[in-house]
């Protein structure tokens, strides 16, 4: 008893063309790494239709592609995700092309989608051809040559600086007479800023449950010269007002020019 292996039986059933086609598609599958993505594969499949790309049957192409994916699956070849995306889309396109258009459907019709795919294939094929034409041109270093002993066409950039004697003297005078312009100088050494005062008081106010004089918040080192004391007093007073405003302290003065005192404001009362 002789039994043909199933493959051979199938081969006998089909005609030569079918075998040829199958072999070709298997060859494609084995060459899957050689493809630059699904569009490239479609283009290759499309070429088997042996027609002008403009008149390619997208429906037939979709079937070829789906057949290819099917084959790959049978041969347990992992296809990259984008090949599967293309397969799903082509299946959708095929159904769109087969069914009568649904007037409620938004977006392009199946024909429009098919025409666009044909355009994409044609464009890709055109770019391939153009690339080949470019690469076949007379190229530098192969057909055309540049000067073998180029000379340096140098451009030395020299920067010179200009300055006049007057500028020089004015600059010197400016440096040497800086002190003459003291009124214009912001001397920060004797400035106690509101920020500094606030920072200091925020740290201390928590402890001031009882009325404490504002003066006691003036930091050490700012009570000496009148100038410094004045600056620090003003800043501390302003900072105290800020704390009152934000509800963190209370301020009290018994009479005009009497010492100003403040204490923490207890939220819970």
């Amino acid at each position, binding site marked *: 008893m002789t039994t043909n292996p199933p493959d051979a039986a199938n081969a006998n059933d089909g005609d030569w063309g079918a075998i040829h086609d199958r072999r070709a598609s298997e060859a494609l599958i084995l060459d899957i790494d050689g493809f630059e993505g699904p569009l490239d594969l479609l283009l290759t499949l499309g070429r088997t239709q042996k027609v002008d790309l403009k008149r390619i049957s997208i429906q037939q192409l979709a079937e070829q592609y789906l057949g290819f994916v099917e084959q790959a699956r049978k041969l347990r070849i992992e296809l990259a995700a984008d090949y599967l995306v293309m397969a799903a889309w082509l299946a959708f396109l095929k159904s769109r092309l087969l069914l009568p258009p649904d007037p409620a459907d938004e977006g392009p019709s199946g024909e*429009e989608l098919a025409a*666009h795919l044909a355009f994409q294939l044609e464009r890709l094929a055109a770019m391939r*051809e153009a690339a080949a034409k470019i690469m076949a041109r007379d190229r530098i270093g192969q057909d055309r040559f540049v000067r073998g002993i180029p000379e340096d066409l140098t451009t030395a950039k020299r920067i010179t600086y200009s300055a006049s004697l007057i500028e020089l003297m004015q600059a010197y005078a400016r440096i040497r007479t800086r002190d003459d312009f003291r009124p214009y100088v912001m001397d920060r050494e004797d400035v106690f800023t509101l920020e500094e005062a606030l920072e200091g008081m925020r740290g201390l106010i928590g402890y001031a449950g009882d009325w404490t004089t504002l003066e006691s918040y003036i930091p050490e080192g700012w009570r000496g010269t009148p100038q410094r004391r004045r600056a620090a007093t003003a800043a501390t007073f302003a900072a105290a007002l800020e704390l009152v405003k934000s509800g963190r302290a209370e301020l009290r003065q018994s009479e005009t020019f009497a010492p100003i005192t403040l204490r923490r404001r207890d939220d819970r009362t």
Partner: protein
Amino acid sequence: MTDQSDDPSLFRAPPLAEQERMVEAMLFASAEPLTTREMEARMPHGSDAAEAMVLLRKRYEGRGVQVVRVGEAWAIRTAADLGFLMSREQVETRRLSRAAVETLAIIAYHQPVTRAEIEEIRGVSVSRGTIDQLIEQGWVRFGRRKMTPGRPVTFVVTEEFLDHFGLETTRDLPGLKELREAGLLENRPLEGAVRVVGEDDEDGEAPPPEDQEDMFED
């Protein structure tokens, strides 16, 4: 300095024949193309490099070396038919991958073109390395950003590309006119068309459906 300024020769440009000698010397000396402006900057005051170039170009017609235009610049290159003599000078250029060659062609024909547009045409994502390779080769550079959402960068081909492939301008790309007439240089995205790449494209968005008809009417 002042005593020389009376010398009229300083204010008279040299004869054109002399200017022709000058542009000839400069173009011979330089391996890179030179613009007439660059040449004029080196020539005596009042010189007209462009006019001198007309003479020079004519002089070298049919010779073993030729004066060629490269974009805005000029260069002297050996005649292509004599390439066989230069086997010793031949430079082994790194073979570009198929992806790189295609990408280069797409940039040349579609420039300025965004990466998303290149991907749309090729149907695959363009690896960073492919464009880097072309930039490194000196054939591609960044163009202006596109004024579309996301302001994507664009790519254009360089003067070196033109020089390398013997093109005067990008208008001389082979088959450009036919491709344009066939509408194959258009970028016409279609809503609902398959997108196998470009989930992260900002500029790859298809236009809203109401614009669609317009897109096809050009």
